[in-house]
């Protein structure tokens, strides 16, 4: 059987490993991975793409999938967590240790809250700290986390908000100033697509991701394991 798994781009490395393990465990099954922006993945499914498993980088997209009856609430599982961190260029002089230090910054990069989950978390956190206005005049909106990372790494902005996993990609160019406290942790949901003709096999893949073996694999790529079910 061929199993099609749509996963967010940020998961590409870890899911490639997971697919190999799955194929080894299930002889005869082939995993076909499809990567893209979480929003694009949902659009594809809505327009009839034959997808069996959907893994997104945020819960909002999965919520929308649920609204459109692409997935059932019961099939949703959080399989990984991430942290939100503020990063600065390695050579930055001024010490930054909390959101309050945003006032001393000139340019702050974050993902567009409308479409990038990391950006949404960041702007919510800033708003909760009562610094919404401060951010408004300094912010540079990026289309994805990677763009934020590049801006910081190239010293074009003074500070950026990214996931912990992203910050780990460029340890020689950016350093983590502080971790942003979030009321709910950043969670990565996965679900079997309702219309999947291979629901049983698909479920086995989800099970693998949630299994200790799968979680260990994810951890190797910097994702923290999900809180136990």
């Amino acid at each position, binding site marked *: 059987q061929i199993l099609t798994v749509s996963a967010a781009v940020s998961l590409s490395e870890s899911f490639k490993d997971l697919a190999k393990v799955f194929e080894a465990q299930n002889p005869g099954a082939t995993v076909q991975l499809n990567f893209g922006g979480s929003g694009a993945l949902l659009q594809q499914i809505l327009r*009839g793409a034959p997808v069996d498993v959907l893994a997104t980088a945020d819960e909002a997209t999965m919520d929308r999938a649920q609204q459109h009856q692409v997935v059932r609430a019961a099939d949703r599982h959080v399989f990984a967590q991430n942290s939100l961190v503020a990063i600065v260029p390695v050579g930055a002089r001024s010490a930054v240790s909390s959101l309050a230090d945003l006032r001393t910054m000139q340019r702050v990069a974050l993902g567009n809250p409308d479409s990038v989950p990391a950006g949404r978390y960041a702007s919510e956190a800033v708003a909760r700290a009562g610094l919404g206005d401060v951010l408004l005049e300094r912010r540079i909106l990026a289309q994805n986390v990677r763009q934020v990372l590049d801006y910081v790494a190239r010293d074009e902005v003074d500070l950026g908000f990214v996931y912990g996993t992203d910050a780990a990609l460029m340890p020689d160019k950016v350093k983590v100033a502080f971790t942003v406290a979030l009321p709910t942790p950043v969670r990565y949901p996965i679900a079997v697509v309702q219309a999947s003709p291979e629901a049983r096999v698909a479920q086995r893949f989800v099970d693998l991701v949630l299994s200790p073996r799968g979680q260990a694999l994810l951890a190797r790529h910097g994702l923290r394991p999900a809180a136990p079910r």
Partner: protein
Amino acid sequence: MWVPLILSLKVACCALVISGVTGVMLGFALARTRHWLGHVLDSLCTLPMVLPPTVLGYYLLVVFGSKGILGQWLQDVWGLSLVFSWQGAVLAAAVVSFPLVFKPARAAFEAVDARLEQAGRVLGVGELGIALRISLPLAWRGILAGLVLGFVRALGEFGATLMLAGSIPGKTQTLSIAIYEAVQAGRDGQAHVLALVISGVCLVLLWFSTWLSADHRRRTGT
């Protein structure tokens, strides 16, 4: 690295065949009409270029997805599913490269000396013969320029492709998409290597095309 490269070349070649044949034919047809419908069609054909490729990809998905009008028809009649298939990538690349072939081809056909076409008719040759044996070789230079642009564009296309065909390694993940993903995933070294590979391949093809054009020039003395 070889798999995406070969896939890219396959997709770009197929797309070029489609947009090349249709673009040159439409360019020829519209160069010969002064009907206002010609203007409208011309503008409509160029329109896909103005949309961000991702958005174009979204509309392609709407139309050619298995829930879309044309998508359903293709599925029913030809058993062809464009979503998540390399044929989808070809469609996306063809739509994107079409105006690049069509516009210069039309301009080149319009610049052909009408007297020579008339001379061909006087010699008893039919319209198809005139088109293929006079207009086409005389418009060759402009058409080649368009084909080169179209091919390079098709090779580099990823926004619309990603939306319609997805990014399935070994199946629809073209080199451009692989570069994009490598950048996204922070694998910069890999991204640079892939960018160098595609640039290199492209340079060879471009160099070949300019050589072709120069050689043609040398032979006709024009």
